[in-house]
């Protein structure tokens, strides 16, 4: 089955990103296809590579990046929500005249249309948030 996942909250403050991660991992183990993980609202904060939690805590960002790499996941960060919250890739930083970018490996910045398209293409869309 094709499953899409929407993550609406950032890491650490809420459990949403943990739940989504565990759900995605379990779905892959069960042989489902994760069509896309879309990050919206504060969920875009899951994609900054500048995250540096204490050593005895999980690194939520790296964990997503590694899962994406292992299973070729399409992880999309909403451009409008990202711009509001200071999440940039190289292109966006250039376009907006910013001096740095911070997007982690495995994430790509794109439009909200990618969320609607996931809804159209997937058999199921599951939302995680606050």
């Amino acid at each position, binding site marked *: 089955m094709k499953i899409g996942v929407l993550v609406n909250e950032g890491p650490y403050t809420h459990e949403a990103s943990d739940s989504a991660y565990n759900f995605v991992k379990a779905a892959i183990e069960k042989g489902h296809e994760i069509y896309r993980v879309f990050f919206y609202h504060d969920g875009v904060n899951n994609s900054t590579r500048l995250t540096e939690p204490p050593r005895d805590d999980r690194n939520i960002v790296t964990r997503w990046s590694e899962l994406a790499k292992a299973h070729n996941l399409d992880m999309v960060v909403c451009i409008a929500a990202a711009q509001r919250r200071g999440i940039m890739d190289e292109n966006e930083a250039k376009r907006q005249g910013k001096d740095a970018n911070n997007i982690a490996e495995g994430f790509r910045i794109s439009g909200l249309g990618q969320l*609607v398209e996931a809804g159209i293409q997937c058999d199921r869309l599951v939302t995680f948030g606050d």
Partner: protein
Amino acid sequence: MSDEMDMEEGGVIKKFMFVNRKAPYGTIYALEGLEVVLISAAFEQDVSMAFIDDGVYELKKGQDTKELGQKNFSPTYRALEGYDIEKLYVERESMEARGLTEDDLLVDVIVMDRAELAAKLDEQDVLISF
């Protein structure tokens, strides 16, 4: 606004419902939720919105954010008609519990009791909630 033409998705039309349960301004969900709804219009799907719980407050007439320094996005609900998004369902129980009537709302809505709205939720293909 984008110069891209309407999306063609091979004739698949799904029932999308955006479920709004949060009040405006206290959190960003209502505003960013509305942004997705507007984008979804380009995909020619069967789009509706449900206003439940504090989501009903999003439609209250007379919002004035001047002193807040936030953008008043309530006029945008009136633009939905031009985007062919005309199915705005309000749960009667939520509206009445908040002491509101249809006259308090800034757009024409379809008021439904809980059983009617429950049936509407059931028949959706994709539910995206904020």
